[in-house]
């Protein structure tokens, strides 16, 4: 690492080394080794906010771990940075009947140990996942069967038009290797078909990877990648400015201007997938509202709340402009997104209208309720909660704040959510399909297994449920999209939840490094390059 960095310095970026020294070094390099720049091992050091906890892709689902997994492993289907779905380890697939899919594997794909990828590895992966903590990844796979070495047949429990998109999260492990080393060692010694091999993992210090020369897409451009966990944002910025690292994740908002002003570095941003949403209770009686009837059952009250929330003020005053107000529940890349439909245009911030809606509904004098949210999970979550309390007080809704660390939060708000009326949390759908979000968060509770299990506001709409049922009964993606779009229209009309904004991902890097920010936040060195 040190060698690579020193050499790059001497060859390129002047300000660090004095000009005379740089000249001398450049001359020396030129005299001795004319082809040094080409022969040089390319390396990049990336600072992340945390260390991975476990390198077994079937044992965890948190960001740092996910970033590592996709370097070591591949899925049958690949997600592009823009969340398009392209062939990965599978070169093609076809739908045989409503519940049967056949995937053709790419031939000659090598694992890091030299084994060739076979259909049996895919079948084993599915079976292992079903017994793991991440069983939900394969909830829509009933069974998998190897037809021959390069063909796998999947059965789904019901027609599921987006199986290929769901399989983009299923990383394929090597059956023989996994069985041989056991679960505990799988967490320490990843071995897949991915572009990088693990070289060294020193906990909380570094994860070093080296390029896998036989990678099926071609050898990676960067030979050596080092990830360093630097939790403290200011330290992360300092590490970039001092040359200790080349790229940092989550540049602190207060450092953006400073880094942008420095000609040696650049700042790269993009909206993330994480939609901050508020679930409104629609039950007859709401736990934190001391009234015989729950006011939020009235759609006019829900609309009044939406109109009283000034999302632009949240963006400018709390988020320093690093957020994108949400127009719908899922981003434009997803199935179920309705082009042209905009929550913010239908219900613009309008206090007059909000007050008159409250009056119409008979709640001119408002009511009191409690907002449950985190204080350490989402960007500025506590400040947003305080902002919401101020905004809703303008329509006489007194919002008490119940802020808690995330270790308590997700158990606290869990369905049946019998302590909550108004819950703010984030939701992201990397599978690129609104159906997942809708069936989990908005489908009526207790109607069907696997539906409505996180419907915290107990929203129930027969028309909406029917559309989800239809979407889940077709194996045709276009039809599914059409049903989900209708469902989106109903949700926007009925307001079971209020979408607030997408957080912004902010990276900073040396100018010499090409960084491609991904929608799913999974930094991938295979897509990067170093000049």
């Amino acid at each position, binding site marked *: 690492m040190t060698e690579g960095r020193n050499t790059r310095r001497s060859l390129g970026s002047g300000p660090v080394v004095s000009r005379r020294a740089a000249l001398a070094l450049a001359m020396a390099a030129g005299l001795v080794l004319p082809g040094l720049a080409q022969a040089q091992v390319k390396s990049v050091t990336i600072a992340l906010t*945390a260390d991975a906890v476990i390198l077994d892709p079937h044992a965890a689902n948190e960001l740092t771990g996910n970033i590592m997994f996709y370097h070591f492993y591949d899925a049958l289907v690949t997600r592009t940075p823009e969340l398009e779905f392209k062939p990965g380890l599978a070169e093609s697939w076809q739908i045989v009947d409503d519940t049967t899919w056949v995937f053709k594997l790419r031939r000659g794909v090598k694992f890091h140990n030299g084994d060739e990828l076979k259909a049996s590895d895919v079948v084993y992966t599915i079976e292992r996942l079903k017994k793991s*903590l991440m069983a*939900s990844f394969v909830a829509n796979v009933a069974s998998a069967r190897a037809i021959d070495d390069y063909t796998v047949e999947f059965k789904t429990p019901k027609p599921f038009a987006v199986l290929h998109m769901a399989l983009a999260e299923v990383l394929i492990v090597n059956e023989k290797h996994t069985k041989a080393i056991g679960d505990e060692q799988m967490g320490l010694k990843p071995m897949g078909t991915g572009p990088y091999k693990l070289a060294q993992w020193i*906990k909380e210090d570094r994860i070093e990877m080296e390029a896998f020369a036989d990678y099926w897409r071609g050898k990676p451009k960067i030979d050596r990648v080092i990830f360093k966990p630097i939790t403290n944002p200011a*330290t992360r910025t*300092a*590490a970039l400015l*001092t040359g200790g690292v080349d790229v940092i994740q989550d540049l602190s908002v207060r450092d953006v201007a400073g880094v942008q002003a420095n000609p040696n570095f650049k700042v790269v941003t993009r909206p993330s997938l994480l939609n901050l949403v508020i679930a409104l209770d629609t039950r007859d009686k709401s736990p934190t509202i001391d009234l015989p009837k729950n006011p939020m059952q009235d759609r006019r009250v829900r609309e009044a709340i939406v109109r009283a929330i000034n999302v632009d003020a949240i963006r400018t005053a709390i988020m320093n402009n690093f957020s994108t107000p949400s127009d719908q529940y899922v981003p434009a890349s997803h199935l179920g997104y309705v082009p042209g439909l905009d929550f913010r245009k239908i219900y613009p911030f309008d206090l007059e209208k909000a007050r008159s809606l409250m009056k119409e509904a008979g709640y001119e004098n408002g009511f009191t309720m409690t907002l449950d949210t985190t204080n350490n999970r989402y960007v500025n979550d506590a400040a947003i909660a305080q902002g919401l309390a101020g905004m809703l007080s303008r329509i006489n809704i007194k919002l008490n704040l119940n802020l808690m660390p995330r*270790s308590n939060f997700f158990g606290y708000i869990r369905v049946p959510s019998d302590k909550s009326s108004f819950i703010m949390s984030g939701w992201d759908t990397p599978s690129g399909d609104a159906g997942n979000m809708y069936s989990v968060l908005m489908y009526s509770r207790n109607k069907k297994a696997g539906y409505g299990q*996180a419907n915290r506001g107990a929203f129930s709409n027969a028309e909406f449920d029917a559309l989800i049922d239809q979407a889940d009964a077709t194996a045709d993606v276009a039809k599914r999209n059409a049903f989900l779009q209708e469902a989106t229209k109903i949700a926007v009309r009925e307001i079971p939840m209020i979408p607030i904004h997408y957080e912004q991902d902010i990276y900073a890097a040396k100018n010499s490094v090409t960084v491609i920010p991904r929608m799913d936040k999974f930094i991938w060195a295979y897509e990067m390059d170093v000049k």
Partner: protein
Amino acid sequence: MFGYMIKRLIQMVVVLWAVSVLVFVMMSFTGDPTFMMVPLDATDEQIAQARRILGLDESHLVQYWRFLSNMAQGDFGRSFVFRQPALTLILERLPATLEIVFLAMALALLVAIPLGVYAGANPGKPASRAVMAGSLVGISLPGFWLGMVLIFIVAVKLQWLPSSGRGPTTEWFGLRVSFTSWEGFRHLILPAITLSIGTLAILMRIIRAEMVEVMKQDYIKFARAKGATAKGILFKHGLKNALIPLVTVFGLMLGDLIAFATLTETIFAWPGIGKLLVDSIYRGDRPVIVVYLMFVALMFVVVNFVVDVAYALIDPRIKIK
């Protein structure tokens, strides 16, 4: 001496047991860690399966009983998050912490002793007053602030030292250490300074206060009368008699720095055990928290024992009973 050790051993077992009970009771209030492990859209069956995998499907009492009986067999439990033995997680991070703590303590002693002795022997001089004022600043400076300022000035502006992280390491009797190479040592300097400032200031004040007392004693006058050198009076007759409180505080500070260097480690992205504790609390990773706190309790018991033995060595009038 033997009876004393037995007594200490029993005390230790009681302390460790109390810590384990406390942590278990506390953790039963902080919510179910299962919800942090499973996806938000997990169904009831998936959650039940996760609980089974993590060993959380039984009552707290049964879990505690299982923890105790496993420990009796030398198994300290396994982290929910890392799925590795909790003790391994702590031990593999320990050398990094010990490295900065020992350097910080050495630094603190090296500076505190001469300055404290000087200030104690010459309480009226302006230089002594300056030293005392400086020590107040040292005590009141928050470590994280000092760390940030050092990074900004020494690393970012002057570019003298690296801003964060641990340098290259080498194996040394099976331990991974970084002070053996110059580059590794450079990485140690800033965190060690940050960690040492508070301790340094406190030690210095204690030495000064004790020295002021000691220097008034008759035996100092006798030493002067018999013609001992100024240096001999200060260090042999003076400092040695001022050492008892210093040793006590030194022991406690040492334990404190090892166990709770968390802030400094976080600021400098130092791969030590302090960060592990904070992360584990954040993730509700009970097995790690229990073992960590028991480890800390054990360390304090040992440090106190060593301090008691040191008393007897320093002052022959003290007998260990």
